């Protein structure tokens, strides 16, 4: 295990709106080690994207607001960093790719221009060297005929190719951390697999750690080593992927795993977790999942459980079921 690349401690990110303060991220702890692929899973609105934008400091302020906690990247506190320092970090040390490859490239610049621009923002490199570097990068992400693709415009490429280009741009300065915000959600299933393979290969070859934000446990199973499950602004379970799939301890994680369609079973109806994600800001005391939980107990409604580990120290969950079991044992 390498040392910690990114450490998020007790992060609180709020949205200040006219109707009050919404705690979108409410005390999140998360660690990403060097060269590791970590999945961050949860339904829409659980705070996973806000967490990633918080790390990049790209949340518009207002309405966004850092209400507490710290984000350390290689020991450096990012929340308090100067904007100038953040500009050096973005794209060079931490990069990001987005969900929608159709809209995340500038329609008026060629693919090459967009890679070269990023390179030249971060390093003193001549146009010619940068062009060669861009072509090399495109080859690295598996684009055939890179020499002619550098001269094409985004609208001439398919969604899968554009996502490859996005990855090439994000990785051209060899950052140590890549934040991927649902990078495969908008793609065809076959293309999804190709992109995941590519990310896995680049992770291995370049040693880039990846924070993979997704709502798809299939993606997590495919490429992640560890996974963090979030619900309503809090981490509810974290651990190694195989531990969590083999032995999910939080009822929410169990529900997520049960709702993956299985090919080998006759299922007339797909399982879905009853109820809905609580409206942001409507959260009261106790466990946030309690209203939807099938194992709900009295204590769940009044007191929020801690994120604790059982026998395996790397597998932690936030559920009273597990604490009472542990007490009973």
């Amino acid at each position, binding site marked *: 295990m390498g040392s910690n690349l990114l450490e998020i401690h007790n992060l609180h990110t709020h949205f200040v709106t006219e109707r009050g303060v919404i705690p979108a991220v409410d005390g999140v702890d998360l660690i990403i080690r060097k060269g590791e692929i970590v999945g961050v899973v949860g339904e829409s609105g659980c705070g996973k994207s806000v967490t990633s934008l918080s790390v*990049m400091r*790209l949340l518009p302020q207002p309405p966004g607001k850092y209400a507490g906690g710290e984000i350390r990247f290689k020991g450096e506190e990012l929340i308090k960093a100067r904007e100038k320092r*953040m*500009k*050096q*970090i*973005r*794209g*060079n040390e931490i*990069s*990001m790719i*987005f969900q*929608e490859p*159709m*809209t*995340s*490239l*500038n*329609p*008026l*610049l*060629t693919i090459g221009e967009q890679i070269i*621009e*990023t390179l030249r*923002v*971060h390093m003193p490199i001549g146009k010619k060297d940068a062009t060669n570097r861009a072509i090399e990068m495109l080859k690295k*992400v*598996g*684009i*055939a*005929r890179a020499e*002619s*693709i550098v*001269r*094409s*415009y985004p*609208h*001439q*490429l*398919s969604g*899968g*190719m554009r996502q*490859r280009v*996005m990855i090439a*741009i*994000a990785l051209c300065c060899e950052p140590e951390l890549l934040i991927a915000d649902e990078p495969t959600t908008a793609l065809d299933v076959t293309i999804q697999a*190709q992109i995941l*393979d*590519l990310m*896995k*290969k680049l992770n291995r070859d370049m040693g880039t750690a990846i924070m993979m934000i997704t709502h798809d446990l299939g993606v997590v199973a495919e490429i992640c080593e560890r996974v963090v499950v979030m619900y309503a602004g809090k981490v509810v379970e974290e651990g190694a992927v195989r531990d969590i799939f083999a032995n999910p301890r939080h009822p929410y994680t169990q529900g997520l795993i049960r709702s993956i369609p299985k090919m080998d079973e006759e299922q007339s109806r797909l399982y879905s977790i009853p109820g809905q994600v609580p409206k942001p800001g409507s959260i009261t005391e106790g466990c946030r999942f309690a209203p939807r939980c099938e194992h709900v107990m009295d204590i769940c409604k009044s007191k929020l459980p801690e994120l604790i580990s059982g026998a395996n120290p790397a597998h932690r969950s936030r559920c009273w079921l597990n604490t009472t079991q542990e007490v009973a044992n």
Partner: protein
Amino acid sequence: MSQPAVQMSVPPPSHAEVSSPWSDAWRGFRRNRLAMIGLGIIVFFILIAACAPWLAPFDYKEQDLMDRLKAPNGEHWFGTDDLGRDIFSRIVYGTRISLWVGFSSVLGSIAVGTLLGIVAGYYGKWVDTIISRLFDILLAFPGVLLAIAIVAALGPSLQNALIAIAIVNVPVFGRLVRAKVLSLREEEYITAARSLGMKNSRILLHHILPNCLGPIIVQGTLGIATAIIEAAALGFLGLGALPPEPEWGKMLSDSRQFIQKAPWTVLFPGLSIMLTVLGFNLMGDGLRDVLDPRMKS
């Protein structure tokens, strides 16, 4: 899993030559017949303006009191006005004035309006409030009335009319650009550019401004038509070009008392204004079809 990265098996789109969004737009524009007619009219008038000294048979200010209010004939193709000046020559030279006023006032409006609009849209907050209220105030006056007020303050001359028209049209472009910037700011590729560590100035100049150009060009073309009409209106009211400048609006107002006796004195300047304005409007509409609201997907 350790298979090598999957190479794209799909052949990349066939593009013999690089087709930029701009060249795609031009291809679409060429297919629009009305727009091409508009472009033809504009090119025609630009050629007339450029070749005025060779086209005009007479000096535009040369008076011949013996030949007053002559109907069109072999010598004076468009007839003569009340001072015996050759109307054809005056129209030919007037083309220069109208095009000059149209282009330069619109360029001025674009320069100032785009700057203010981008600043307001990108930085927001109180900067936006101040600039937007300024636009609201300017737009609260009817265009020509405001232009009249400005010319009255500056003194009547062609140059002051031009400045007045430019000022009147600043909020048109300012608002357009501000709205476009507001929507562009939410685009994922702008967030992506920020996530790559680019500076605000680079994002504004290299990513936001070029993506605003489409609507600016469309509005600019239509704006030239408006500016030409406004210049003619100011000329008609005696607030624009001073005699003996052959400004079309001025020619209309000077001759309106002879409209029954010598209709050609108003017919030809009127037709010229109509034709140029029509040309710019046709071309503007054609540009809108290919450039607005989105380039092409």
